[in-house]
């Protein structure tokens, strides 16, 4: 048994947790799996590695059905940030989830990395010409002339097949009722969905929530650079409100009233852009 398999086994046996979320090899594939005391032998098949999934999303589902459940899970940095957001948004109780940290993306703190999505793939020829390359910095996107930038984003959005994969995988998408399924907001019956409304609605709702895990971009079958878009969303939140999503204990600025307004409305655009 590896040390982590032993640890999970102990946690379950000691009743430190009732259920432990991690990955298990099934037919040669690492799949998300819930380990329990009843099937303790399965802990011998627990694996860690580059595969990742929003395990914390399962945790919220379990917590809403069984509020008293103590949940354990393996967690990378992105899982930790998401857990933090979910706690702040009252989807999980304080101390309800205990984590076993596993290796994650490289940073100046740790160089060894173990993640299915370290860096977005560089864009191919068509995407470079027409779309938004996912591995750009925000400054590079902003350096494009406004009309071209819009063209490029629309090119990306019109590939959307409205599979809801981005929402379904997202660890911090927990609403019971989703605006993306409101026929009044987003017309139904045709593909691509109303653009850019579909993607803007999602982007707006990610403000102060998105933990930059990249799972949506990873999941999107149309290769739309969603993480890039939401990175901007959080950059705005950081710039305007000095709110760092995924850290700290406060709700994002859109969910709390300030005591007095500290901003003033933006002035009218002075000169035409063209």
């Amino acid at each position, binding site marked *: 048994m590896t040390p982590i398999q032993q640890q999970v086994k102990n946690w379950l046996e000691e009743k430190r947790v009732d259920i432990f979320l991690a990955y298990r090899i099934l037919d040669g594939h690492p799949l998300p799996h819930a380990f329990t005391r009843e099937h303790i032998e399965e802990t011998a098949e627990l694996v860690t590695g580059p595969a990742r999934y929003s395990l914390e999303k399962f945790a919220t589902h379990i917590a809403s059905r069984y509020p008293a459940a103590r949940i354990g899970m393996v967690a990378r940095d992105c899982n930790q940030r998401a857990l933090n957001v979910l706690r702040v948004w009252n989807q999980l109780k304080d101390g309800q989830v205990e984590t076993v940290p596993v290796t994650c993306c490289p940073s100046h703190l740790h160089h060894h990395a173990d993640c299915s999505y370290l860096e977005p793939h560089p864009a191919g020829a*068509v995407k470079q*010409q*027409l*779309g938004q390359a996912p591995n750009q910095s*925000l400054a590079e*996107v*902003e350096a*494009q002339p*406004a*009309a*071209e*930038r*819009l*063209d*490029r*984003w*629309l*090119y990306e*959005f*019109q590939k959307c097949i*409205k599979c809801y994969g981005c929402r379904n995988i997202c660890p911090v998408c927990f609403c019971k009722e989703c605006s993306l399924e409101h026929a009044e907001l987003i*017309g*139904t*019956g*045709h*593909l*691509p*969905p*109303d*653009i*850019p*409304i579909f993607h*803007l609605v999602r*982007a*707006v709702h990610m*403000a102060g929530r998105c933990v930059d895990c990249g799972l949506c971009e990873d999941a999107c079958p149309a290769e739309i650079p969603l993480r890039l*878009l939401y990175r*901007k*969303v959080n950059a*705005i*939140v950081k*710039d*305007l*409100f000095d709110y760092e999503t995924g850290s700290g204990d406060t709700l994002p*600025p*859109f969910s709390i*009233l300030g005591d007095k*307004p500290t*901003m003033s*409305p*933006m002035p*009218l*655009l002075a*000169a*035409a*852009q*063209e």
Partner: protein
Amino acid sequence: MTLKRMTFLQHLLAFLGLEGRLHLEWISSAEAQKFVATVTGFTETIRRLGPSPLRTASLARSENVLTAPMRRSGCPGLSQTVVPEDGTKIVNG
């Protein structure tokens, strides 16, 4: 709250390339002149910006979305058909 959300949205729209088309102003019922100045100013801004590039594009069936990027870079183009969500029939966009 409105101020926070609107300012956020203005920045987000600017990131997509749609700057200046959203404006927020507080005007009391006693400020007729401010109202006139704001509406006139904003109308002018919008006129200068021209018709919204999304006006036709918002359904993605438009010529604009499907061909504009390709026109810009001289790409032969991708599919210009709109597929109904149930995937049963193909209609021309």
